[in-house]
């Protein structure tokens, strides 16, 4: 994957994530973690090689189909990407409004998602008054509200203290437990190590590690 300026952000990265798997994507800052996630949801297109999601080759996906792809993937963004001109409820409901759910059904799902992340009591508030951890959970609720089969998260614990980080990771594990494939970019090595899942290690745009982290693992230095 080469950015427009000519910078090669990812090269010779090849891996497969099975349905229902939970994997971590790790590596120092600038290693290409975000770029990889962007390829999967077509925020960027691969300049070389192929990205397949659910057997579908994204290289050949016409632009008109991109919204449909994104509706099937839940994404938790590094910078939350919440709208501060509307309530927590409306933020979470956005994917359902876009998909055209009946308001009654939408309300049911929004409340279930907010309940899951423990924010049911804050549905009427504006996300701007919430703490960083709470905003992140609003983002998670929005990502899972239409029950995607694949969940991507880019540094979801980036600015959170260890206790909150661990809570968030527990949430992701619970989603994985019910069959959702989860891919999390993170450089919180201690946390990753405790979860004992598959880890993809990136360094300077190349895949340098694939498998569970053992003892004092080697791939990161951030």
């Amino acid at each position, binding site marked *: 994957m080469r950015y427009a300026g000519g910078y090669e952000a990812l090269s010779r990265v090849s891996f497969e994530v099975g349905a229902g798997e939970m994997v971590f994507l790790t590596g120092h800052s600038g290693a290409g973690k975000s770029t990889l996630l962007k390829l999967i949801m077509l925020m960027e297109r691969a300049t070389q090689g192929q990205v397949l999601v659910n057997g579908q080759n994204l290289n050949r996906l016409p632009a008109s189909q991109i*919204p449909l792809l994104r509706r099937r993937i839940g994404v938790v963004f590094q910078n939350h*990407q919440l709208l501060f001109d509307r309530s927590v409820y409306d933020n979470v409901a956005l*994917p359902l409004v876009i998909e055209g759910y009946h308001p009654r059904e939408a309300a049911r799902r929004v409340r279930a998602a907010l309940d899951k992340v423990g924010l049911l009591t804050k549905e009427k508030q504006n996300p701007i008054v919430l703490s960083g951890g709470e905003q992140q959970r609003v983002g998670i609720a929005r990502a899972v509200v239409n029950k995607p089969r694949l969940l991507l998260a880019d540094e979801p614990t980036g600015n959170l203290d260890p206790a909150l980080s661990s809570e968030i990771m527990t949430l992701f594990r619970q989603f994985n437990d019910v069959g959702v494939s989860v891919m999390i970019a993170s450089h919180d090595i201690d946390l990753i190590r405790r979860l004992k899942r598959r880890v993809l290690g990136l360094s300077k745009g190349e895949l340098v590690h694939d498998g569970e982290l053992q003892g004092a693992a080697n791939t990161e230095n951030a």
Partner: protein
Amino acid sequence: MHRNQLRDRWQSYLDHHRFSARDSLKRLLSTPLQSLMTWLVIAVALALPATLFTSLDNLKVIGQRWDGAPQITLFLNQRARPQAVEALQQKLRLRQDVAALEYVSPEQALRQFEMESGMGSALSGLDNNPLPPTLLLTPAAGISAADLGLLGEQLAQLKIVDEVLFDRAWIERLQGILTLGERIALVVGALLALGVVLVIGNTIRLAIENRRDEITIIKLVGGSDAFVRRPFLYTGLWYGLGGGLLALVMVLVLLFSLSGAVASLASSYQSDYSLQGLGFSGSLLLVLTGTLVGWLGAWLAVGRHLGAIEP
């Protein structure tokens, strides 16, 4: 179940239309001054061609009223002796291509003019009568345009005749002017419509810029282009509709303020002519044009600027 889902989708599609329509109107009203300015600009741009077309329609009605049998007016030399005038009349009456002839002496003409113009006493102060002796000539029915022209030429060559005036020619000239006027109005209308498109396009561009984050996020969570476009198209629609309605009010106020003056002018010519308004279909056309142009401006702006916002 499947059927229900489909119905739900349709329902929520309509809901989103309703929501977009209401939300974009609310946004316009939340900045009333700025919106009013835009509405006024659009209204003026629409009212101008509408007024032009209405004026042309009125002139057309006037033209049609005179569009009867062609008549030729012969102004005779003021120093023509009565015997010469009498001889001319007899000569003309013999012609095949002359159906009727009427002589109006300068005195008669003056009296008629005093009566019709209401300037009687002012004119009676004149030392000598400025009006020439006049012959009103009705050509034979069914005369061809060429023969009519020939008749006119022959009459003009007579020494005693100062000037030959075709009522018909005047009407034709009026109609020519009207056709020209209509073209000009069309061009002016098209240019102003283009102006409205640009004004709305620019306004929508700013609206898109203001909601950049929202657009990005909607696209990130799977909003289709149509979904993203919708509120902005409604914004353009509201601008156009509001502008059209304001333009209608402007034209109606203008016509109303003129109608009194026109009526009294018409009655001074013993005419029951009254100013033609826009009418129902004209009003509808004006408002619809505004709405359509507003929507079009938004559509163009959205096409140009939304594509540039990609997450």
